[in-house]
């Protein structure tokens, strides 16, 4: 194990796997909101500084059955709430590409571990971009699967309706091979079921697809849609690198065309209202009674409020309070109901775009990785950095971030978004770009 010079890990360990399997001999870093039996799982929060889950997440079981060795638990924004890994109660992670800069987030430790070579592969979780953002900022590959492809059993919840566990690797094929291992139905997460009783497909898509085989570099004949709304917001250097990537794809037989997604102008607002509302409910469980530090003294309510004051950092409190507000009497219709309308509208827009394209392409992030400490003081500015990633979670779709080149010497990621359960298409498109820019 390295000396962790980028502070990617919160806990180093060695949980060995089966002798044989598709990941035999491979090391995997696991985000610290994914449960590992008997190994501290903090979610980057002081609230869970000493929490040891009594069970493994389904994805951790599958990793070990596939022969992988879990080498550590990685740093993250507290409960996944942030895009820079700076809201962790245990200090920030450095970007291995440039240690003065953030690695992105919230799965910043996972992406940094892969970029630094401290693990072959990593797992993150993506609620509004938390796998794709750090993959883009650290110059590696990250996949956000279709909602329901990967079991969330053992993932400590932030916003259940939006989040998926996803793989991070230094190649498209590596990330796809890890997806092959973790994807599939799980009776402990009912949202992974795909056997729509009313005439839906019999098989879960993961059981009939090899994602690694889709990473063949061949997207000849693909039609790639480029949503103008999600390119315009990026900085000039990011756009230049993105467009150079599209040129390289066209040289490999890909047709590109502009598409419009008018609803995405409201996606960031809708995402934050829904995510904060779900967070306010999910994080109610942290009361200092079943786990965490007890809030000493007083009655039930006073003790809870004291435990939560001490255990949560500012961004988590902000989101719990705003979510509580958005769900409160008199404001529910104005915020939460409208956000659900926007979510449905975003889904419709994507469906229409996929009627005439195979996948969509955008810059993953509108900016290059900021310097540490640069962006923490203004929460709204941080939320706006998620403009290109959150629409995908609202629409439950699969997406991948793959390196497209650099701008000002820093990594730029290209995001491909596919139709529901269209992981193979985004993996194929990403592998074509990977081959083209090498």
């Amino acid at each position: 194990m390295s000396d962790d010079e980028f502070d990617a890990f919160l806990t180093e360990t060695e949980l060995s796997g089966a002798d044989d399997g598709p990941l035999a001999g491979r090391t995997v870093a696991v985000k610290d909101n994914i449960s590992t039996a008997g190994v501290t799982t903090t979610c980057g929060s002081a609230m869970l500084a000493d929490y040891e889950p009594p069970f493994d997440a389904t994805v951790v079981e599958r990793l070990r059955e596939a022969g992988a060795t879990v080498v550590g638990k990685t740093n993250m924004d507290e409960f996944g709430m942030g895009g820079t890994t700076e809201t962790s109660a245990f200090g920030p992670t450095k970007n291995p590409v440039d240690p003065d800069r953030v690695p992105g987030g919230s799965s910043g430790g996972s992406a940094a571990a892969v970029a630094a070579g401290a693990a072959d592969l990593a797992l993150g979780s993506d609620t509004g971009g938390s796998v794709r953002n750090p993959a883009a900022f650290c110059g590696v590959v990250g996949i956000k699967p279709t909602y329901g492809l990967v079991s969330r059993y053992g993932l400590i919840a932030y916003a259940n309706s939006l989040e998926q566990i996803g793989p991070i690797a230094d190649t498209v094929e590596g990330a796809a091979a890890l997806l092959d291992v973790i994807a599939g139905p799980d009776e402990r997460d009912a949202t992974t079921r795909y056997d729509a009783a009313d005439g839906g497909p019999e098989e879960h898509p993961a059981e009939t697809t090899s994602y690694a085989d889709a990473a063949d570099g061949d997207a000849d004949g693909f039609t790639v849609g480029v949503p103008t709304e999600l390119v315009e917001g990026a900085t000039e250097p990011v756009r230049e690198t993105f467009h150079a990537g599209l040129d390289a794809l066209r040289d490999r037989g890909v047709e590109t065309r502009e598409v419009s997604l008018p609803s995405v102008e409201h996606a960031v607002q809708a995402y934050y209202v829904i995510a904060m509302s779900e967070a306010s409910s999910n994080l109610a469980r942290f009361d200092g009674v079943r786990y965490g530090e007890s809030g000493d003294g007083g009655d039930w309510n006073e003790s809870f409020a004291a435990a939560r004051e001490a255990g949560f950092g500012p961004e988590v409190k902000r989101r719990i309070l705003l979510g509580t507000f958005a769900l409160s009497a008199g404001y529910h219709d104005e915020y939460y109901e409208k956000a659900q309308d926007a979510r449905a509208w975003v889904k419709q827009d994507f469906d229409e775009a996929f009627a005439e394209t195979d996948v969509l392409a955008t810059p993953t992030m509108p900016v290059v990785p900021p310097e540490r400490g640069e962006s923490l003081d203004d929460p709204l500015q941080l939320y706006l950095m998620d403009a290109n990633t959150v629409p995908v979670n609202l629409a439950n779709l699969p997406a991948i971030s793959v390196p497209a080149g650099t701008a000002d010497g820093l990594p730029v990621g290209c995001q491909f978004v596919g139709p529901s359960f269209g992981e193979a298409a985004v993996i194929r498109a990403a592998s074509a770009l990977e081959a083209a820019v090498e």
Partner: protein
Amino acid sequence: MSETPDGTDDSVGADDVRHVAELARVDLADEEVAEFADQFEEILDYFAALDEVPETDADAELVNVMRADEVREGLSQAAALSNAPDSEGGYFRGPRVS
């Protein structure tokens, strides 16, 4: 947050922040209250654009997922209590209710 639901006054005061914090069972220091009041005003102002979103029907292709109601292995009582700061006789021990 002082506004009526039709949005005639959108300023966010310290009392509004304290009220929501009480609902959410989170104590706040005075300086946190002041900081959050300013930030919430800016964030809620940004969220207000949701008002322009048309009513849209969600086309949910959802089916209920059922399983047989059979006894199966679960967490042991000791494992479930293993992270609790305080327990007694196999139960979580919490603060007094009132």
